[in-house]
């Protein structure tokens, strides 16, 4: 089985690729399954309106820069927000809150109906000044308070460089707010900068909020602005929401040994008793879709066709509200001779190389990561890794800053990779 599965109501297109469709039966044997889902052509709608809620850290440390002689971190954030504002249109909504010792709502949720509304936000952003300590939850709470209208796509965009000044109250409150974001279906885009912020806390907050939330480390205004604009494009292309995928092995002796979501960041999914997983992906856009790499182990395969997995997809057409639920069964054919094996699916191989490259990047072995990205056909990320390798060799290099840049770039590189693949596939068809 390797191809497109189009379900009866044609809202969702699913491609299931096996590492090999015919696999040598050895005890035990692993089989890789790449699941790619995209909204079908029938789901395509006009560009959705967005509801962007900016939450900006204006604590004292934001007055500093990430590198000597460069603009302050707050200036970098301000320029990036102003750049993004240019890309918004009259159907979009914007909110701006800040936090230092306290949270403050600078601009309540406002529709950009005309130029004066946009200018008011523009001026408010320009006037932001660094202040005192850091209370992240106070700013986030203000952004999550207004209800979400039914016809817009919401997203909170949070910028920070620091640790909570009072972790005993701020950290548990952040957990509660992440849960609130999850229930209100407002994903969080968290951007960290510098090497002082609480990386693991924010990563956990993004994971807990779910629905496509992510943490991205940024070192300069170009990276930040470029990433935000790309995310806006993906957000506008959202065709399916409340999307979730569930997988379960087809028989008790088969073990699920790996499940990785590739969008919008690479992340390992929790396996339940080595036989099932579930992931609430949230929004699925037309550009990237949603991809998963699964791996199962069959302890004693017998030549012939064997069912490996049952997959269930649920979601809702964002515009019409029509819900869907589909199931797919994934079989593989075991063969008794190595010569009867089918060739390896090149797309699966590329994903595996990409994951190996991400591991190297996370471990700080940038030159090796660059080689793997190049081998996997992702020249753009390979170039970034080569740059990081060169930077890491310079005296006084900030290893923490570089490591965070590399990790979020590597684990978000799948976004770029699949966008390119889909562009290529569209061009070829």
């Amino acid at each position, binding site marked *: 089985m390797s191809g497109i599965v189009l379900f009866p109501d044609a809202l969702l297109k699913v491609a299931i690729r096996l590492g090999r469709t015919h696999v*040598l039966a*050895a005890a*035990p044997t*692993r089989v*890789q399954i790449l699941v790619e889902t995209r909204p079908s052509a029938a789901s395509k709608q006009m560009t959705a309106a967005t509801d962007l809620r900016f939450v900006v850290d204006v604590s004292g440390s934001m007055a500093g820069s990430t590198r000597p002689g460069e603009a302050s971190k707050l200036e970098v954030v301000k320029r990036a927000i102003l750049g993004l504002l240019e890309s918004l249109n009259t159907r979009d909504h914007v909110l701006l809150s800040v936090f230092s010792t306290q949270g403050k709502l600078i601009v309540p949720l406002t529709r950009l109906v005309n130029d004066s509304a946009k200018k008011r936000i523009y001026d408010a952003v320009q006037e932001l000044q660094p202040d005192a300590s850091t209370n992240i939850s106070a700013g986030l709470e203000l952004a999550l308070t207004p209800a979400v209208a039914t016809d817009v796509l919401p997203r909170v965009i949070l910028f920070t460089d620091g640790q909570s000044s009072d972790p005993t109250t701020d950290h548990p409150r952040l957990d509660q707010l992440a849960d609130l974001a999850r229930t209100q279906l407002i994903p969080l885009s968290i951007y960290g900068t510098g090497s002082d912020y609480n990386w693991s806390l924010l990563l956990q907050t993004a994971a807990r909020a779910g629905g496509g939330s992510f943490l991205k480390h940024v070192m300069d205004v170009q990276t930040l602005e470029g990433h935000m604009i790309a995310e806006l494009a993906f957000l506008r292309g959202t065709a399916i929401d409340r999307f979730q995928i569930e997988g379960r092995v087809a028989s008790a002796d088969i073990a699920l040994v790996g499940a990785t979501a590739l969008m919008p960041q690479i992340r390992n999914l929790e396996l339940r008793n080595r036989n099932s997983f579930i992931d609430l992906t949230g929004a699925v856009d037309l550009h990237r879709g949603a991809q998963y790499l699964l791996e199962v182990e069959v302890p004693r395969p017998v030549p012939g066709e064997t069912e490996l997995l049952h997959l269930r997809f649920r979601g809702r057409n964002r515009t019409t509200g029509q819900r869907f639920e589909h199931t797919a069964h994934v079989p593989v054919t075991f063969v008794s001779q*190595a010569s009867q094996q089918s060739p*390896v699916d090149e797309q699966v191989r590329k994903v*595996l190389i990409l994951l*190996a490259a991400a591991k190297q990047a996370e471990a700080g072995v940038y030159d090796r990561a660059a080689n793997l990205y190049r081998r996997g056909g992702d020249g753009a990320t390979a170039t970034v890794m080569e740059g990081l390798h060169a930077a890491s060799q310079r005296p006084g290099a900030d290893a923490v800053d570089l490591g965070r840049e590399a990790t979020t770039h590597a684990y978000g590189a799948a976004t770029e990779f699949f966008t390119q693949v889909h562009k290529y596939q569209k061009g070829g068809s």
Partner: protein
Amino acid sequence: MPTCKKCSGSYVHGQIICPNCAEDLDEPLALESPPAQLLPVAGVYEGVVHIGRTITLNVIEIDDRTFPEGRYFAIIPVQRLQVPVRIGRMDLSQFPHILPEFNLGGLLANLQPGLRPVVSRLHATLQLEREAPVVKPLVDHSAATWVRHTGSDRFSPIPPNTLRRLEDRDCIVLGHPKGRHVTLRVVFSHP
């Protein structure tokens, strides 16, 4: 388990790239791994279920060649070490014959034909000392047997005829770690 041609790391059949070095594994040769070879030890009978703890001696390096655990190995019940097990190389050319209980001569002759064997005919013994497995060099110069304790990257030489206690996953080096050598990894079974 099959092993990667590039890094000798083990993988599971069906995997497409090596989990250790990301090398492609789909060439037909990569699927064919040599069978595991259980090395005999005098007084230990193959096919007998061992009661109590055992020690597995894995040959993991011979000079610059590395081998995964489980490729060339011997399993010795800890109780067997109440009588020392000599590690060395069988030599029938002399009388009396030299017959170490754990003979590496055949393996070295197979893997390094024509090369002078690095292991002495009677190189070291494994035995029990106060119920704990120890290694004792038999060669009478001080840099012929080394140990690297698990978790450390430092090799330390063992003076001749002194005992060195072994812990799970320690490595015994017969020869010199930076020169010609055979490395054995000691793996204890769990009680």
